[in-house]
């Protein structure tokens, strides 16, 4: 029985180009208070364009209706839970939006004199310090714009230190359970990728690691807890094995939501890690970004951090550009400052004890979901899970129903799907991470939905395979979209 949703009318809406009419306006600029100019004279006629072909012209009313109608076709955290594994889709506090928009912060130009940017610099310094404390590391850079960007920065830092020590080495070890950005990053950083298989328990196989680590290995990239939601119990041993051969331990911090206030990567042997502020630290996903991917490092890596660094100069903040060992910039300016403000606001709201409480609730929620769903879905690994749990679709596959189908049917119950078919080491994975900002009501509705779907699979598998039924569009034809890509509007 579906209780969370009922269908209701949503407006149709054409594309902007189809609503456009010459002469419609949604803007008004002030009158020019300086003399107008003939563009052809100022720029040369050959440099001046004709009109922008096909560009829309709509009124303000049509503009607001257009986007509002579009917005109603989306699911969002504000509607309900996203059980997406390793995405940490927690509540995006609205106060974060307010403070990021305070004029002195929102209008600050990155090149304005340092004396007139002390507020922004203090915000960044405070966040660096907080993240260092949370991760147990010695220094933090806020430059990277997203997790993958942070990974690249982190691997480049490792390369730089190893180069200084005489040998940058050739390969990076990556578990077969890793997120796709890990090997992609290693390749961009100029390293070959060697996969390391997980043990039968789904965790790092330290025996295999010991065999694989040699002086050609620069680092092991690990996610902890791993993508099964399981804590890597052998992580300290792994760090020892690596360090003994002069290799480094890189941690993908995507799953930090299980560790904040409970355990610190710096304490269990990690040399370099990145964080995802748009996951653990509540900054909004906004349909795909922006994020921020700060990198935290042990002291030895500090000289290589991207330039500039914040430094204290008397009572003020200043930028230190004299960093000859720096790997350079990984982007222009200082970082996704607006995202950094939001993350700091989140940290201030929770505070030290509060952050730990959030972690406890996140793990409690995931363990609760596991316990309630265990009778209905196959659990490939028996180890205790932390903030997320991974089932497999083995049981349902016997009826010809796969994880993707179950996910689509979950939509009919009023939820966004969980993460489908990842990690790859589980056959037909269902990866579920509730996060701490889900209450018992929402969780119970989710659990009821999943159980109901499991029963539907037994009684009427076709029903599940053809889902969803209640959405604006039914399943879209991704095959034709890939065979004959249409990537822009063209007038017919």
């Amino acid at each position, binding site marked *: 029985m579906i209780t969370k949703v009922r269908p209701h009318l949503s407006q149709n809406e054409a594309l902007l180009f189809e609503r456009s009419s010459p002469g419609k306006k949604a803007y008004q600029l002030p009158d020019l208070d300086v003399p107008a100019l003939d563009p052809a004279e100022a720029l040369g006629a050959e440099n001046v364009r004709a009109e922008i072909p096909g560009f829309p012209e709509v009124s303000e009313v049509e503009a607001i209706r257009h986007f509002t109608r579009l917005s109603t076709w989306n699911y969002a955290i504000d509607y309900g839970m996203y059980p997406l594994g390793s995405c940490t889709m927690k509540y995006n506090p609205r106060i974060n939006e307010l403070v990021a928009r305070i004029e002195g912060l929102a209008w600050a130009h990155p090149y304005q004199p340092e004396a007139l940017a002390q507020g922004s610099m203090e915000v960044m310094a405070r966040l660096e310090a907080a993240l260092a404390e949370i991760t147990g590391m010695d220094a933090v850079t806020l430059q990277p714009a997203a997790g993958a960007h942070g990974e690249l920065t982190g691997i480049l830092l490792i390369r730089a230190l190893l180069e200084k020590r005489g040998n940058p080495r050739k390969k990076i070890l990556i578990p077969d359970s890793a997120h796709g950005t890990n090997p992609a990053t290693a390749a961009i950083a100029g390293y070959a990728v060697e996969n390391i298989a997980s043990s039968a328990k789904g965790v790092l196989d330290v025996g295999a690691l010991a065999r694989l680590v040699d002086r050609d290995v620069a680092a092991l990239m690990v996610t902890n807890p791993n993508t099964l939601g399981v804590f890597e119990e052998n992580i300290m041993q792994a760090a020892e094995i690596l360090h003994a051969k002069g290799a480094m331990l890189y941690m993908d911090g995507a799953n930090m939501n299980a560790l904040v206030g409970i355990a610190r990567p710096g304490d269990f042997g990690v040399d370099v890690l990145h964080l995802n502020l748009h996951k653990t630290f509540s900054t909004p996903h906004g349909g795909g970004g922006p994020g921020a991917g700060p990198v935290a490092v042990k002291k030895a890596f500090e000289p290589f951090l991207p330039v500039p660094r914040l430094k204290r100069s008397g009572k003020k903040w200043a930028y230190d550009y004299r960093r000859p060992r720096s790997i350079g910039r990984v982007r222009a300016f200082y970082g996704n400052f607006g995202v950094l403000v939001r993350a700091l606001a989140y940290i201030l709201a929770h505070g030290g004890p509060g952050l730990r409480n959030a972690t406890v609730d996140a793990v409690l929620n995931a363990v609760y979901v596991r316990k309630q769903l265990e009778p209905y879905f196959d659990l490939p690994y028996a180890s205790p899970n932390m903030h997320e749990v991974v089932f497999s679709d083995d049981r349902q596959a016997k009826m010809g129903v796969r994880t993707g189908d179950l996910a689509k049917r979950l939509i009919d119950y009023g939820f966004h799907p969980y993460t489908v078919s990842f990690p790859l080491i589980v056959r037909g994975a269902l990866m579920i991470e509730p996060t701490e900002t889900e209450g018992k009501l929402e969780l119970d509705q989710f659990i009821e939905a999943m159980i109901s779907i499991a029963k539907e699979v037994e009684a009427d598998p076709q029903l599940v395979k053809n889902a969803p039924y209640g959405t604006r569009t039914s399943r879209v034809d991704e*095959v034709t979209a*890939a*065979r004959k890509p249409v990537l822009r509007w063209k007038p017919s």
Partner: protein
Amino acid sequence: MYPDNFRYTKEHEWVLVEGDAGTIGITDHAQQELGDIVYVDLPKVGVHVELGKPLGSVESVKAVSDIYSPASGEVTEVNQLLAEAPEKLNQDPHGAAWLVKIHLSAPAEILNLMSAADYQSYIGAEK
């Protein structure tokens, strides 16, 4: 189902030998496993391909698979049909949707490949 005059690899490619010319494709089993094929990436004419090494790849919506060459040689012809209609590879993998033709540089290699009967048992065992 599997033509007797083809030779087959463990990676589910086939080759048809005619003199010192080879026609290469993927098997019906392969296209079934891949699902709806959306794109085929093939080498250009003149490129040298090597037994066991990737000569290109096949894409479905959610996956990419390398195609390993069943024989060594130089590409003499590339099937243009697949650029226009990759779905043909699902429909007729042993016929119209051949991938490339090559001039075999080491015809003896073919002796190590599987016969139709052997391939049939191989995929039967795989299941």
